[in-house]
Every structure is written in structure tokens, then in C-alpha cells.
């Protein structure tokens, strides 16, 4: 058996529907069609009435999910692409995120954002919006990098009493495979040491974890041991695991696929610089996408986002410092 990242997302939703009558799925084309990426394939057939096609109304989709959550349901919203969540932005950050704080009523909704770049995706089907959502109080933001995490974190997202922004990476949908589904999982908020090393810490999340691992592989052939930390969730962000890694290596490179101003890499570096300054043997560095919209053409796209090729350059430079 071989399970893709996408199939793991489908199976997590299937299990959530099967085990919890409060769960339903709402999104464009998620019903009989099974979703633009087939993440809900067959679920409408298996769970009649609980996997519902939405009109092209992201604001109302999220609003309705919040209302259903108030009444005790656990809705999963599928955005067709993360980029379209801009249209539901107001409901997400002002209604869902603020509800519990204002009223003490929890808002257990999960919003799935098919995120990140793919070849030919272009400016409006490639965005990584995790930092935007992490900025707002009241949201949990998950960024699974593995098939196992895609599965167990999505189950966890549905179980959590707060709104969860679930950033699943489209590039990993088919590329990434695992032999079986996990039977246990790390708790939300814990980062994972994806590979141990003692010379340099690369902190990454989502698709960038795999670029970082490729770099570690490459540098290992030269005798350099890179430790790769997979953040798993960026809010909460597991500063302790990052700091412990930096304590071992003394060097920090943080990699993200989002735009360079602000974002996860700035947050990680700010935390380490202020709380773990003494652990650093060299200036902490970061690598992000370029400061332009995500380009359509593969030639441009390959250079716009960080890849093993550009990360290894940054890593080498940092190792020399």
C-alpha cells in the first residue's frame, strides 16, 4: 500500500466523518465531484448529505461554518485554492478568530487551504498565506510536511476547539508517499527533528522541509551534518525545539516559500535572536520566495521560490561564517 499526501487528507476527512457526526464538509465542488483535487472523492457518496457543494461565496462559506460551529458542529471548509481565501478573509480573522475571546464560545472550524506553488500555477493559484493568518490572535495554523502529518494533523485540526487554518501543500499532493497511515502522532505545537545534525539547523515547514532534507543529503556527502527542523505548525510555533537545535548546531537558516517581508522566517529568527542569542555562533539567516507575485512560467517559478539549489548556497555561506 502506498498513500499519497492527498490521499491522507482524504482519508483523514473520511475518518472524521465516520467517527464524529458533528463533522461536515462544505466547499466548491466537494460533493459528488470530490473536489478540484479529489480530496473529498467518494465522501459525498459515503456520507450522504454531509459533504456539500457551496456556491462561489467564500465569505458566506466561512460565515456559515462559524454559525454551524456555534451550534456544536465541526465543519471543514475546503477553499479551492488558498488564494481564494482572501475573499473569506474577513470572516476568518474577524469573526472566527475573535469569537471565543469575545464570547467564550469555541469556534471549532477547519479551513483547508491548498497552498503553495506548482509549476504553471501563476500568481493566483500558488500563494502561501500562512503568515497572514498566524498574525491574527485566535487562529491555529498548521503546515504539514509529511503524509503522516497531513493525516494526523487534519484529524487533530477537526478535534481542536479553535479555528484551524490547515495549509496543505499542493506540490506534495502527489509527490509525497508513505507506506501506511500513522497510528500515533506528535501533539499539535510540537516541531519535529526531520533529520539530526550538529553543524547547522535548517528550520522549514511544508514543502520546504523536503528541499531542506535534500540539502542535508547533499552536504552530508561533504561531511557537513545538517539538522532539519520541521515546524509542523507555525502557530503555535515550537520555539523550544528550534532553540534546542540551535543550541546543538550554533547556526540557523530558516526557509519559507512565502514572500520575504515578515512571515514565518522573520518570526523564527526574531524568537531565536531574542531568546537564544547566546546559542548562535553566526548570524541567523533566512531564505524566502522573491518579493514579486508568484510567476507563471516554470523557468521563473523555479527561481522565485527557494529550492535545494538556492538553499545549499545559503547554507554553505552560513557554514563559512
Amino acid at each position: 500500500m502506498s498513500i499519497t499526501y492527498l490521499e491522507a487528507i482524504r482519508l483523514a476527512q473520511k475518518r472524521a466523518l465516520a467517527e464524529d457526526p458533528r463533522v461536515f464538509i462544505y466547499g466548491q465542488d466537494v460533493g459528488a465531484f470530490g473536489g478540484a483535487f479529489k480530496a473529498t472523492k467518494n465522501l459525498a457518496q459515503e456520507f450522504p448529505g454531509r459533504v456539500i457543494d457551496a456556491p462561489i461565496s467564500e465569505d458566506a462559506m466561512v460565515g456559515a461554518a462559524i454559525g454551524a460551529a456555534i451550534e456544536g458542529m465541526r465543519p471543514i471548509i475546503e477553499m479551492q485554492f488558498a488564494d481564494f481565501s482572501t475573499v473569506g478573509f474577513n470572516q476568518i480573522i474577524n469573526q472566527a478568530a475573535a469569537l471565543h475571546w469575545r464570547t467564550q464560545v469555541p469556534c471549532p472550524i477547519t479551513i483547508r487551504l491548498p497552498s503553495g506553488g506548482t509549476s504553471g500555477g501563476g500568481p493566483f493559484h500558488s500563494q502561501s498565506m500562512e503568515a497572514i493568518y498566524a498574525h491574527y490572535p485566535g487562529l491555529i495554523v498548521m503546515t504539514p510536511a509529511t503524509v503522516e502529518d497531513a493525516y494526523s494533523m487534519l484529524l487533530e485540526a477537526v478535534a481542536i476547539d479553535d479555528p484551524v487554518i490547515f495549509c496543505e501543500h499542493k506540490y506534495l499532493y502527489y509527490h509525497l508517499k508513505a507506506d501506511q497511515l500513522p497510528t500515533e502522532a506528535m501533539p499539535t505545537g510540537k516541531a519535529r527533528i526531520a533529520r539530526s545534525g550538529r553543524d547547522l539547523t535548517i528550520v522549514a515547514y511544508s514543502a520546504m522541509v523536503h528541499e531542506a532534507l535534500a540539502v542535508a543529503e547533499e552536504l552530508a556527502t561533504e561531511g557537513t551534518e545538517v539538522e532539519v527542523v520541521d515546524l509542523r505548525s507555525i502557530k503555535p510555533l515550537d520555539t523550544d525545539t528550534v532553540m534546542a537545535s540551535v543550541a546543538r548546531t550554533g547556526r540557523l537558516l530558516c526557509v519559507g516559500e512565502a514572500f520575504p517581508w515578515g512571515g514565518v522566517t522573520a518570526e523564527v529568527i526574531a524568537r531565536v535572536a531574542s531568546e537564544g542569542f547566546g546559542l548562535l555562533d553566526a548570524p541567523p539567516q533566512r531564505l524566502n520566495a522573491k518579493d514579486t507575485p508568484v510567476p507563471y512560467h516554470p523557468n521563473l517559478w523555479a527561481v522565485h521560490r527557494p529550492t535545494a539549489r538556492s538553499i545549499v548556497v545559503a547554507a554553505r555561506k552560513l557554514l563559512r561564517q
Partner: protein
Amino acid sequence: MIQMVASRPATGEVSSCRDAYLSAYRWMLLGRILDEKFASLYRAGKIHGGVFIGRGQEALSVAIGQSLRKGDIFAPLIRDQAGRLAFGESVLEAARTYLGSVLGPMRGRDGNVHRGRPKEGYLPMISHLGAMIPVVNGMLLARRFKGIAGTVGATCLGEGGTSTGAFHEALNQAAVEKLPLVLIIANNQFAYSTPSSRQFACRSLVDRAAGYGVEGHSLDGTDLTACLKVVGEAVANARDGRGPQLVVARLLRLCGHGEHDDAGYVDTKLKQSPVGRDCLKVAGEYLVRQNWAERETLVAWRNEATQKVEEAIAKAQREPAPDPYTENWCALASKHLSEVYE
């Protein structure tokens, strides 16, 4: 609560009409007096932030609150003090929120018109206009999932709020799902200072109903009888499974946008036109004319309401304000996932 479903005349109709009217009038009066109190506290500098009142809109608002039953959902807006009271909010709760008492439902975290109890079907508005409608839809959807039938969700909007994308997406969503949503538009001629002519170009907003495939109703919002009848019908239709109901009332905001605003931009002619009538006065006169109440009774009710308001305000004012040092500063329900920033 008494419903006035024109299509189902009952033997006790006249007396039930009278009872409904009397009850509505008293909620209107209480709402008006409470609003006036908030306005005077505002002028005295005793309120944090703004004060938004429903002067002139009490008849419409009360008709909503009074047409709803326990178990129904109500998402009021800034001009719905009367409807909130009729739906079951206590004067004290309103006072606590406006005065920032930590014992209020929002505990000082949110204030003034931003109050409610979601678990009791009473939603606390966020400021973004139109944003409450899909939330009501979602609650109604949830009830369908849970097999709860016969409840209705009502929510209010000004004519200005109809220009939001949120309004459109949500009304369409309700129509597609055939939800028992009652959406009441108070066309009070202005959105802040902006006249309706700069807000929409259709003859009446009720002309929008057909475009969503929902039933539309329009009425004179200065006339309590019409409000009780039409809103009551709309609620009954929704309850009967006839899908969303769009109710559009004509009236005039008899106050500023907020108490900081003198509304100098409202034309005197408009104030003197039928749309500018004060629904509370109109209703009081109707009561007297119908011999349903004596003038003295109206005065007694007013005094009673005033006393109720004064007591609640006095109580709320004595209550503690929130203490930032005991505040937990945690936005999440899952406390263990909360981050600590120093």
C-alpha cells in the same frame, strides 16, 4: 410570543392583536428610554466609545424580537435595542455592556452594541456589515443537520449594509439552501451621512427578492401594526419551510448615526414627511385611539420603564470594571496551545 399570521385568522385575533400591540409598545418604550439613557450618559462622558441608538426604528425592531420564539436565532444590529429586549435581553445586560462591567456578557472585552449570547441564539454582531447573515445561515444549517425543525433565524441590516458583498453571498446562500432566514432591512434613508440615492439605484430594495428567488415583503416601518403583521408573516413563512424572507421597511433614522453625530445632513422636509414619523408616538396615539390604553397608562408605563432603566444603570455602574491583571489574555479555547509573548 404571539404571532400574527394574516393567513390564519383565529377567533381570538382581535385580542391577540391587542395583546401583541400592547406588549410591543412597552418594549419599544423601554428600548427608547434605555437608548436615551445611553445617549445622556454618552453626553456626560460616562461611556467608552460610541453610542448607537434605534430612535425611530423601535416598531420594526420590536416586531422581530416579538415574532421570534425561544430556540430561534436573532442577530441584531446597532439600532435594535427594542428588538433585543423583546427577544429576551435584560436591561441590565445592555447596561453592563455599555458601561464596561466585567459581569456583562462580553466582560469588557467587547462593548456597546457588540453583545450577545451565541449559545442562546442571540448573536453578538461584529462591526463589518453583512457579516452576521452567513453565521445565522450556518446555525440554521446545523439545526437541519441535527434534525431540529421549526426554528427560524432573523437578522437585521440597514439599507447601507445591502451594498456589501457579504449581504449578497449570504442571502444567496440561504436561498440555495432554502433556510428559514428572515432578513430585515431597515431603509432609514441614510447610511451614516450617505443618502440611499448613493447606495442603490433600484426602486425599492424589495425588488431584490426575486433575484434571489426568495419572498419579499415591504412595509411602513413607522407603523407598529404593519411591522407586527408583516414581520410576523415573514417569520411564520420561514417557519413553515417557505425559505428565506426578505423584509424591507421604510422609515427614518430619528437620530444621528451615533450620538457624536448631529445628522445636520438630514433634510427637514424628509423629517416632516410620513417616513419621518416617530413610530413610538404613532403607536401610543393608536393605543389611545383604539381605547387599548389611557394616556395616563402610557405615562405610568414610561415612568415604570424609566425606573427600570435607572436601576439597571445604577447597578451596572457600581459593578467592577475588568482588571487587566486578572485577565487571562488568551484568545484560544485550547489554552494549552496558546503562546506566551513577553
